[in-house]
């Protein structure tokens, strides 16, 4: 019974504080007390809404019935924004560290990539066979001086000239190969065109025709 009386008294005092706040008759201490009471008793919000709505109606304004849902939406939205802002504030000192860590990670990754590239063999980078006028030059060198490099794209091997062979000697070798080839062809053709052929061929027939009366 006594507890109920105390509760009623507290409710009465909180309602009176609300009434005084409406009239601007409450000081800072009173407002702080009222807010503490409102934290414990959320129904005071509804009472505040009704008090203000009643005042408007007494003054002759024709407004719709009071509802808490709108104010709840605004309050929830503002609370969400406030929480996000405070979270951002907490995270703000960590931001430079996060940026530094990201930059360090990128630096390490790029460094690793560069190191791998410089240590890779460059044998496959250039053409394995020197080209002159689109003809490959295969030097007739000693067996041991020609190396076979495995091709990067398949199982077949590509022939590669040793890097110490000078370009001049390659040109000389090309000239020698061509001369040999031409000499061979010339020898074959020369063997086919005998003097007999000359005498019995088309030229001989023309000569005999011109000698006739």
């Amino acid at each position: 019974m006594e507890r109920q009386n105390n509760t009623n008294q507290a409710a009465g005092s909180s309602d009176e504080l609300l009434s005084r706040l409406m009239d601007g008759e409450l000081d800072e201490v009173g407002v702080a007390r009222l807010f503490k009471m409102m934290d414990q008793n959320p129904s005071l919000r509804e009472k505040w809404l009704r008090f203000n709505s009643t005042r408007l109606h007494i003054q002759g304004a024709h407004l719709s019935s009071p509802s808490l849902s709108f104010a709840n939406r605004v309050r929830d939205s503002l609370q969400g924004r406030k929480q996000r802002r405070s979270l951002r504030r907490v995270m703000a000192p960590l931001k430079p560290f996060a940026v530094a860590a990201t930059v360090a990670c990128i630096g390490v990754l790029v460094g690793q990539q560069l190191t791998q590239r410089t240590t890779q063999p460059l044998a496959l980078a250039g053409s394995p066979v020197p080209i002159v006028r689109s003809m490959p030059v295969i030097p007739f060198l000693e067996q041991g001086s020609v190396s076979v490099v495995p091709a990067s794209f398949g199982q077949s091997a590509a022939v590669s000239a040793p890097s110490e062979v000078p370009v001049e000697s390659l040109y000389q070798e090309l000239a020698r190969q061509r001369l040999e080839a031409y000499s061979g062809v010339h020898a074959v053709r020369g063997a086919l065109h005998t003097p007999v052929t000359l005498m019995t061929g088309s030229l001989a027939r023309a000569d005999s025709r011109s000698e006739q009366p």
Partner: protein
Amino acid sequence: MGTGSALDDDSDRLLVERTQRGDLRAFDLLVLKYQSRVMHVVMRFVRDADEAEDVAQEAFIKAYSAINNFRGDSAFYTWLFRIATNAAKNHLVARGRRTPVLDVDIDEALMHDENQRLVEDESPQAALETQELEAVIKRAVQDLPDELQTALCLREFDGLSYEDIAVIMNCPIGTVRSRIFRGRETVDQKVAALLNGEPI
């Protein structure tokens, strides 16, 4: 008497100052106090009730974000009114709709609040509820004991201070405070009963 009166000034100043210090509960009380008035103003631009509610909510959020810019040169409601009308106009522009050629003046809005009922904006049920609420409040005030009724009316209609009412009623300020509170409390009991669907 209309919206944003001198009656509200002291109370609003107190709540605004607390809001500026980061107390969201103080702003919550301002929202509860002004929500219907802001909705009413926004509804003059945006006819759809759901859209108007969104715009009103946006207006309150903008007001909270800019509360530190409020210096108290004008009444809080005047400042809030401007934010609400701008939010409503921006909403119409964003939706590709034309804003009203004639601007809504705060005094005009006041007159509108006092003398015009926006029946076209209300559903029949809402209009009936509003009528019923008005009738209950009117009857409750009329049924108040004389001293409570006089104190409450001098405060709410005439906007007199507690000191002035004390002089007029020839009683201490504490008595005036108590009478006004008891008058409000009695009326509120009937309003609460109506809203909760209880017998009055």
